[in-house]
């Protein structure tokens, strides 16, 4: 994966496994003699991607595919088991807590559930002022107050409500407040983890419009995590499709939606219900999503893929770049098997 200019964020072969084996007794196994066995959830496996300045990269996939783990790895909330993460050319995955601080200002996160992500005992003012005060210890009270007012106006919450608590707001307004909290430090890069999936359609449209406005006004770069593919098509410049912690396909939104290459992407796209379209036959997948504790051999998708051949069971497909800067990890696409 090479580009002419340095991307804002680059994730390189990142792996994150969680140990869920429990204590000593839980690890004991008696099959073929007594020995200890670790159980790990393989949440993210060798994922590489980059985000250019000013673009919106969406990471999509079904529940349990590792998209939220990836977001948390990027923001340093988890440390990867292996692999590298670069922000603006600097490696950030090995930084200490203190070294992280300047990056925390530049990279902010918006969470899914506005009912859970705001502290119910803090007023809007406390929620918004705290990061501001922490990162700018010299700021005067008036400056902080002005900044909070300014950001609240930007996200469409009346600054007169500054002394209210989260329970006095509706879901949409709460999500606006958590967006305000993300913006208060003037970040460059925002990771939004399912920011609209807890909201009703008409409110969802308001928040999506707001996010797109803010991107233009503040020159923001988004990493957008979602399972809702129609939202993805609407707002993203490029899309990464994850399946079982593995990157299947990475392409520009237009290419991906017009000409999906990976069999999983095709199945996923064919399953979106569209308003006003009579049902097209969706591609049926075999079986169920395997657990990330015991990944299938070879291509992780092979046991559900209708095109799978012998090679898919044995060999893990590399991520290859196609002519139109689409990246796909599939033996079938690489070798040009007929797939219709």
């Amino acid at each position, binding site marked *: 994966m090479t580009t002419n200019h340095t991307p804002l964020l680059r994730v390189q072969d990142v792996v994150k496994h969680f140990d869920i084996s429990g204590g000593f007794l839980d690890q004991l196994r008696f099959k073929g003699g007594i020995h200890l066995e670790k159980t790990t959830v393989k949440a993210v496996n060798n994922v590489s991607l980059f985000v250019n300045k000013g673009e919106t990269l969406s990471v999509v996939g079904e529940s349990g595919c590792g998209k939220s783990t990836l977001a948390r790895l990027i923001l340093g909330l988890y440390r990867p088991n292996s692999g590298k993460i670069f922000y603006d050319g600097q490696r950030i995955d090995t930084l200490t807590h203190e070294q992280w601080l300047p990056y925390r200002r530049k990279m902010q996160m918006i969470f899914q559930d506005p009912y859970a992500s705001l502290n119910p005992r803090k007023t809007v003012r406390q929620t918004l002022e705290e990061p501001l005060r922490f990162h700018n210890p010299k700021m005067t009270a008036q400056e902080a107050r002005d900044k909070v007012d300014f950001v609240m106006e930007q996200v469409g919450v009346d600054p007169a409500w500054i002394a209210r608590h989260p329970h006095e707001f509706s879901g949409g307004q709460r999500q606006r407040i958590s967006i305000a909290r993300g913006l208060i430090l003037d970040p460059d890069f925002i990771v939004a983890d399912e920011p609209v999936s807890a909201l009703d359609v008409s409110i969802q*449209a*308001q928040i999506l419009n707001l996010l797109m406005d803010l991107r233009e006004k503040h020159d923001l770069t988004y990493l957008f995590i979602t399972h809702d593919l129609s939202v993805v098509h*609407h707002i993203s410049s490029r899309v990464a499709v994850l399946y079982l912690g593995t990157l299947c396909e990475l392409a520009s939104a237009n290419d991906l939606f017009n000409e999906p290459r990976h069999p999983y992407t095709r199945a996923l796209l064919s399953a979106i219900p569209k*308003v006003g379209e009579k*049902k097209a036959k969706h591609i049926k*997948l075999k079986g169920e999503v395997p657990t990330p504790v015991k990944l299938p051999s070879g291509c992780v998708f092979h046991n559900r893929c209708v095109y799978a051949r012998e090679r898919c069971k044995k060999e893990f497909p590399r991520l290859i770049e196609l002519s139109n800067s689409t990246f796909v990890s599939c033996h079938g696409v690489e070798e040009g098997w007929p797939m219709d």
Partner: protein
Amino acid sequence: MSSLLEVRDLEVKFGLRSGDITAIDGVSFELDPGERMGLVGESGAGKSVTGFAIINLISKPGYISRGSIHFEGKEISAYPPDKMRTIRGNRISMIFQDPMMTLNPVYTIGFQMIETLKAHRDISKSQARAIALEKLKLVQMPSPEKRLAQYPHELSGGMRQRIIIAISLLADPAIIIADEPTTALDVTIQAEIMDLLQELCENEKMGLMLITHDLGVVSQVTEKIAVMYAGKIIEYGPTETVVHHPVHPYTIGLIGSIPGSIEPGKDLRQIPGMMPTLTNIPPGCAFNPRCELAADICTRQTPVLEEKQNGIMAACHMK
């Protein structure tokens, strides 16, 4: 011809200390055998309460304060609990939203299915088991015999929802009320479950009432659609027509606010504000503070649902 289910002027109120609030206000619709209807709206519009009211699952302080529910020609809204039990789960069954919460985690699938059957019919355990197996096959459950001995936690969300559909089919109901059956599931699983429900309705001549906020799902599965706003049906008509030529400004806004309905990157059409809470419904048309067409009459007089165009009924003064 009389319909399978006919709901007329249904009103449901919840008694609060501060006075009664109206959750459903004069809802009417009908459902024919084998017909699939969608009940759409945002949270708090009253769609689930409508579903619950039909099978009399409204619990205190809620009550049906007005209106009638005719099922197979009989008025069932005032049935006493024991008589209602011959209908609920038997002739009309319901599928709930969260497949993780609906099944009892401490009993096997088989136990739960057999128990349900024995509650409705006087049959032996082995007969019940045979029917349970048959229904599991009907919902295309892989290795059904094995499932009977399994507990809910051993199955994935999609499988559990299949089990729940199988349970709801046990007594060969005439109507299934499905309340957000796929909201908790991933898209690929959602597509499979919706396919399954549609096939079952076609093959078994079952009526389906699909309660959902997802217009995409409704437009693919149903034949007619009722859009609810603040406890009222504000638009009612054939799905095709409503989706392509909506009449009510709320429906127009709702369809416009779905990403995918317009060119990517452009601003979505948004409805300003939010749905009023039930304690605070504005006078006249409940939608008037958010409506761009609102005129003087909208704040004074409540519009009634009436025939507008192409067989669509809508409640709006301005159209």
